[in-house]
């Protein structure tokens, strides 16, 4: 469908966290691709494996994580890279924005020093040039009185400004791929939308690919081109955002959409999905959502449902999804 080379390609990614007592199967065979200029949203609740998937793209996981599969970024195999070339990749052609601007910046260095450090790490320029670049970046992310903010410590900035500084740092070396791990979750609603608009704008201007992890459907609708819905370490549905929001295929996505506040009448209860996500130390053998699914059949509990493609560009891993004859052929 898309003729350009994908910027990032993940095939059959599996991540386990091996502990002394138990092993957590966080990601269990995830595949997707992101093209230049595309925004992919990974949507899921906490524990669905969305953040772990994102971090695998930079191999930014603790030592006890066991990663399998194929992760390619810019044609390079991230999982087989040497530590040195991995460090060149991180913050260079791929960079990441984190959830908590409160804690994600080093408290004892100024914002300017922290941005400048990234610039110097990847371009090898001197301190004065790095500072000039940091100022340029603070202006780029619309931080008012940027010159003064350069010498501010993180605790002297508001949450919104801190997240902007974080974005400035991530953009400092013109990354081709921007990874965002719930960057707006910790912010106030009004600030949230400003940061989203800014991100979308910068992404379009710089032609970056972006993978945006969120649990918030509204945020996904705002920013995504395509959405991958994750549940229990697997992508259960994938497709363009408008069509998914209008007509979700997977029962989990349907449940998610039904459980949000939209135009129900005042006294009508919101339909929450019954039950809770499975314990990933002992993931269920079949479909991860089967224990909570109203449409579940016997086969759902024994075998992982195959991916089905009912329309071009859309995928759902559910036996209840009807595939038209034409598309199946």
């Amino acid at each position, binding site marked *: 469908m898309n003729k350009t080379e994908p910027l990032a390609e993940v095939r059959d990614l599996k991540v386990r966290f091996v502990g002394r007592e138990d092993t957590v199967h966080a990601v269990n065979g995830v595949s997707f691709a992101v093209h230049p200029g595309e925004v992919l949203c990974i949507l899921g609740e906490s524990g669905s494996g969305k953040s772990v998937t994102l971090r695998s793209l930079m191999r930014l996981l603790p030592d006890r994580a066991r990663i399998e599969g194929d992760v390619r970024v810019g044609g390079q195999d991230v999982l087989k890279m040497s530590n040195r070339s991995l460090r060149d990749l991180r913050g260079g052609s791929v960079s990441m924005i984190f959830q908590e601007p409160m804690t994600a910046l080093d*408290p004892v260095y100024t914002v300017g020093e922290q941005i400048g450090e990234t610039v110097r790490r*990847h371009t090898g320029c001197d301190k004065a040039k790095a500072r000039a670049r940091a100022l340029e970046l603070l202006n780029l992310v619309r931080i008012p009185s940027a010159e003064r903010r350069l010498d501010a410590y993180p605790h002297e900035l508001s949450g919104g400004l801190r997240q902007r500084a974080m974005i400035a740092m991530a953009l400092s070396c013109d990354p081709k791929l921007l990874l965002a791990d719930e960057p707006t979750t910790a912010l106030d609603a009004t600030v949230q939308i400003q940061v989203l608009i800014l991100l979308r704008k910068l992404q379009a201007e710089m032609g970056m690919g972006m993978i945006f992890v969120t649990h918030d459907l509204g945020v996904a609708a705002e920013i995504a081109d395509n959405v991958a819905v994750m549940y229990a370490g697997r992508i259960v549905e994938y497709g363009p955002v408008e069509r998914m929001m209008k007509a979700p295929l997977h029962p989990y996505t349907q449940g998610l959409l039904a459980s949000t506040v939209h135009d129900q009448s005042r006294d009508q209860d919101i339909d929450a999905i019954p039950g809770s996500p499975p314990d990933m130390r002992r993931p269920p053998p079949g479909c991860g959502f089967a224990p909570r699914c109203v449409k579940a059949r016997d086969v759902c509990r024994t075998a992982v449902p195959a991916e089905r493609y009912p329309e071009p560009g859309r995928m759902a891993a559910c036996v209840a999804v009807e595939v038209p004859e034409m598309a199946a052929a």
Partner: protein
Amino acid sequence: MSRYILWRILYAIPIAFGVSVVCFSLVYIAPGDPLQTIMPADATAETIEIVKKAYGFDKPLPIQFAIWLGKVLTGDFGMSISSRRPVLNEIMLAASNTGMLVAFAVPIAFTVGFSMGTLAGCFPGRWMDRVVTGSAVIGVSLPNYWLGIVLVIIFAVELSWLPATGMGARGSDYFSIWDWEDARFLVLPVITLSMIPIGIISRTTRAAIAELRNQDFVQTLRAKGLSEVAVIRHVIKNALPGVMAVMGLQFGYLLGGSILVETVFTWPGSGFLLSKAIINRDVPVLQGTILTLSVAFVLTNLLVDLFQSMIDPRIRRG
């Protein structure tokens, strides 16, 4: 920043005053009469009165305190009851002898403790960590006078490599740090003194580093493409304020001179002076020494506070 420094210095003055009150009254709270030791057992009540008057012990305590403080502020700490020499001289001499030990024990304890703690904190749960944590526990729990005696038995008695006690081959008055014949007297007391600070500092550092390495900002640093060494540099800068607080306390304790260690090695330092003054009920020496050490302690903490605020901007908002 300069406001913070000024404010912090002003704040140290009432602390120092409080310390002087405690020092002064300490001797009167303690049981026993300071005159007992210098008076012959059969002294008449009249003689005791005369001596009391001579030392000013007959006046009410607040007056005695005011007189004492006034003299102290002009550098007059009075005369030692037992040696009849000016207290200030005695303190200076003892403090410089202890200072000699501190000058070696502090750099050793701080660098060894800090590097051990950093290494352990970088590899929590690994063999390096176990070795450091284990030896830190041993260092802290060994009574240092016992360690001193054991070191003497091994290195002085059995191996005859180092002298057992004393300060210098020709006595403390002729001690020269530049002469190995004298300087070798430093080795055992310095090692003994360093043990506890090494243990305490390495444990504090390890805890700080291990905790900081789990913080979110460390992941950001890795995501920036920094090497592990560069990441650790950030972590260390974050750990420093907390570690420095502990270092300041340890420095203060070392300045006070360990009574036990200086007694084991008969090192004529401030700890030794204190123990002598206690035994002789030499009140002016006791007061003077405790006051000097306490003020040094207050100053050390002041310095630590200032250093901390230079490293961590969040502290300045006081």
